[in-house]
């Protein structure tokens, strides 16, 4: 192999060093909300009995790395300053599709995430925190539904908007502090669980059972099994595939690395390594803590406690929530410091997800505004706050309506439907963009300038291969959603919602196209192919 030919740079050239790979990976981890994702995966045994955590995790790992990580890596590395999937899809597929994807994601999905995640602070997070501090979590039952939940959620929602209005500098600083806390909390819980054998756990459980007049471990498992209609003796593929949906939470959302303004991207280094490492680290973490938890509880136990966490159980009188944080706190005798760290980890990670939803919505709408696919005020930036205040307030109003609905009809599994909607729209269409990227004439010059154009597998561009894998992964996850009985009650509604949202998104494009046309502006010019010669 020949040595590289040195290039000459002007001194006044904007030369920088390579951005830290660690920073890029960590940036991705910030978006994975590990304690929340972990809780969700472990809680899934209630509605996906017989899921094989190892198989589901490893399958998700491989498909995420070879699919999504590569897709985002290639597109992000080929168009590092483009601004993300709205632009990739508009350029490669069509502006209508680009806007449809962006509308579905930036508009509807972000609203839906606020709808389900903001209430989790009160519905799930605060009871967990109470329990981990050794306080009776039933004291906060009032905030887990109805007006109590609405009140707490409103406080969370207001706080989230205020964080964004305080500016991106404050947001990033807060994110670093809170997410670091959340990661430490998850690690602490992981260490405690790993260090506790099955036998030791039962011993601790039974001693507290006596104290709280609760069923002993064996009795609890038996009662939960009866309530569940039995615990499968072995694993099954249907539930295992279904488990890939919550596992994806911890695996795929590091894709946000692609949005780091072009500063970590190097043709063969940081962007790929960051995307891949992010997935590997987060999934490895899940595997570590998840398997340790399963070993500690046993096969039957992990199902039983998941059921209790979801449905409750007569005879289970422990004062804390049946979650990995609750049990970790129990093991360390409700140490207040450790309990605060672990319990708080869930709350802060969940809160930051609400904040991120506001940031994502405002950026999406701003981009539409710049392309004149929306009212003029979409590009208004408040001189006082330096933020798009009108857009943030619009989302706030919409989300308050949404959380009103959730507060009186709480449904944790709604989050799975939100995820599927996002997977199909953002990840699915972006995978399609990657798949056809090498072959689309109107972006040929972008592909020709791409550092990945020479990457081939069996003669096929890696962009295409990875697009196929990613698309296949999306299809697999969608099938998992539709074949699992646990989600059946949502299928009709959410399928309809998805189609309606897309219809609105596409209509939005044509409506604003017509509006602008009357003003003498042709919006198709925003992404028009310009001859390069």
């Amino acid at each position, binding site marked *: *192999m*020949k040595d*590289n*030919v*040195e*290039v*000459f*740079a*002007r*001194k*006044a*050239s*904007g*030369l*920088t*060093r*390579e*951005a830290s790979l660690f*920073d890029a990976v*960590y*940036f991705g981890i910030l978006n994975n909300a590990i304690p929340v994702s972990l809780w969700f995966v472990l809680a899934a045994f209630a509605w996906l009995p017989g899921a094989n955590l190892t198989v589901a995790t490893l399958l998700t790992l491989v498909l995420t790395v070879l699919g999504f990580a590569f897709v985002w890596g290639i597109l992000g590395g080929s168009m*590092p*300053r483009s*601004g993300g999937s709205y632009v990739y899809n508009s350029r490669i597929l069509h502006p209508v599709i680009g806007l449809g994807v962006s509308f579905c994601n930036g508009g509807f999905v972000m609203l839906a995430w606020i709808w389900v995640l903001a209430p989790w602070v009160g519905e799930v997070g605060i009871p967990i925190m109470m329990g981990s501090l050794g306080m009776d979590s039933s004291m906060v039952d009032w905030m887990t539904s109805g007006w109590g939940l609405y009140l707490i959620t409103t406080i969370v929602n207001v706080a989230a908007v205020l964080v964004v209005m305080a500016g*991106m500098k404050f947001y990033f600083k807060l994110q*670093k502090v809170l997410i670091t806390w959340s990661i430490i909390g998850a690690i602490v819980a992981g260490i405690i669980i790993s260090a506790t054998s099955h036998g030791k756990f039962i011993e601790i459980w039974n001693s507290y059972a006596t104290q709280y007049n609760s069923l002993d471990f064996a009795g609890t498992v038996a009662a939960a099994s009866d309530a569940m209609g039995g615990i499968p003796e072995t694993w099954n593929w249907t539930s295992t595939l279904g488990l890939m949906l919550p596992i994806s939470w911890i695996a795929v959302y590091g894709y946000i690395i692609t949005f*780091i*303004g*072009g*500063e*970590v*991207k*190097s*043709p063969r*280094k940081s962007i790929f390594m960051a995307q891949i490492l992010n997935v590997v680290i987060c999934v490895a973490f899940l595997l570590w803590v998840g398997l340790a938890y399963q070993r500690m509880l046993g096969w039957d136990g992990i199902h039983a406690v998941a059921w209790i966490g979801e449905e409750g159980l007569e005879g289970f009188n422990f004062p804390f929530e049946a979650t990995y944080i609750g049990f970790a706190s129990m093991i360390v005798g409700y140490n207040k410091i450790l309990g605060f760290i672990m319990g708080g980890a869930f709350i802060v990670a969940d809160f930051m997800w609400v904040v991120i939803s506001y940031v994502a919505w405002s950026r999406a709408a*701003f981009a539409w505004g*710049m*392309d*004149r696919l929306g009212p003029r005020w979409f590009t*208004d*930036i408040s*001189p006082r706050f*330096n933020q798009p205040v009108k857009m943030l307030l619009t989302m706030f109003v919409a989300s308050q309506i949404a959380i009103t609905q959730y507060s009186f009809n709480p449904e944790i599994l709604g989050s799975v439907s939100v995820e599927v909607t996002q997977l199909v729209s953002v990840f699915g269409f972006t995978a399609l963009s990657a798949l056809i990227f090498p072959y689309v004439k109107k972006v040929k*010059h*972008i592909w*020709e*300038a791409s*550092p990945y154009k*020479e990457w081939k597998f069996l003669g096929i561009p890696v962009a295409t291969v990875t697009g196929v894998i990613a698309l296949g992964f999306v299809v697999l996850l969608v099938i998992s959603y539709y074949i699992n009985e646990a989600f059946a009650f949502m299928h009709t509604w959410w399928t309809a919602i998805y189609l309606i949202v897309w219809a609105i998104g596409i209509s939005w494009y044509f409506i604003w196209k017509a509006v602008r046309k009357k*003003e*003498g*502006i042709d919006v198709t*010019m*925003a*992404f*028009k192919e*310009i*001859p*390069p*010669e």
Partner: protein
Amino acid sequence: MIKILYVADVHGSNTCYKKFLNALKLYKVDVGIMMGDLCGKMINPIVEQTDGTYLATIMGSNIVAKTEEELANLEKEIATTGNYSFRTSREEMEVLKKEGKSIQGRIDERAASISLSDGKIDDLFKKLVLERMNYWMELAEERISGSGIDVYMGAGNDDIMQVDDIIRQSSTVKHADDNKVVIRDEFEMISSSWSNPTPWDTERECPEEEFEEKLEALASQLENPEKSIFNFHVPPYDTLIDQAPKLSEDLVPSTDETIAAGSKAVSNIIKKYQPLLGLHGHIHESRGIVKIGKTSCINPGSEYSEGILRGVLLMMNKGKMKDFMFISG
């Protein structure tokens, strides 16, 4: 109505420049403005090997050209990214390398062994930069002359001073820098290629106080500041359009922290005179539009290294900006 296409920061990209010329007719504009950072940043030497082939390293990949056609394609690919190609021998490369200072670093998206220019390499840069500028002026003459489209071009802080002379000599392109022009007898426009201090000691930067004096001198020429356009390469300070990744002392960019890289002098002048429009570039990532009082300040961003032309179309009517639309093609 007057339709203006504004682009910035093409950094020597032949593809972006040609797209700009083609876009003027495609978008049916009346006026085209290309302002700021016209010069490329790097030279990719194409070195003749002992077997008669030529070798270059582009974006970390070694590319071998065996025929004249392949060489021409290689040179074209380099020019698309804004770099300059230079056919040379191994012996000459050794001489040139001794003149430069080898470092590891990155410019935009390229990680490569880099030699900072000095001495002979500096001379080579000047030669190649001016060759390309002359080529661009010839292209403009060929494609725009007689079209009725007014084209303005001005340098940015990264650009060597000799670039201004090349533009001034053009019979088709009008020079926009340190002067006042009047667009279509309606909009006065003042332009400045200068910037506040940067970490790289660029060609045209000065302390904020001195910068404000320069801008004040320009603004004082205006008859109707509220209906004018301030075509300043550097954006106003601490707005949506001047956010750049924060750099450590050894120039490592942060992944999540940004700083305001714009100019306080520009902010002050805009606040004082409240022109109709501020047109800016300089920070490629900070594409957007903000208002400072009554002034709309715009940065179209840049994706020059991928050969993508970023710009903004401005629809001006009855002394006002009626509407705008960001484009990328």
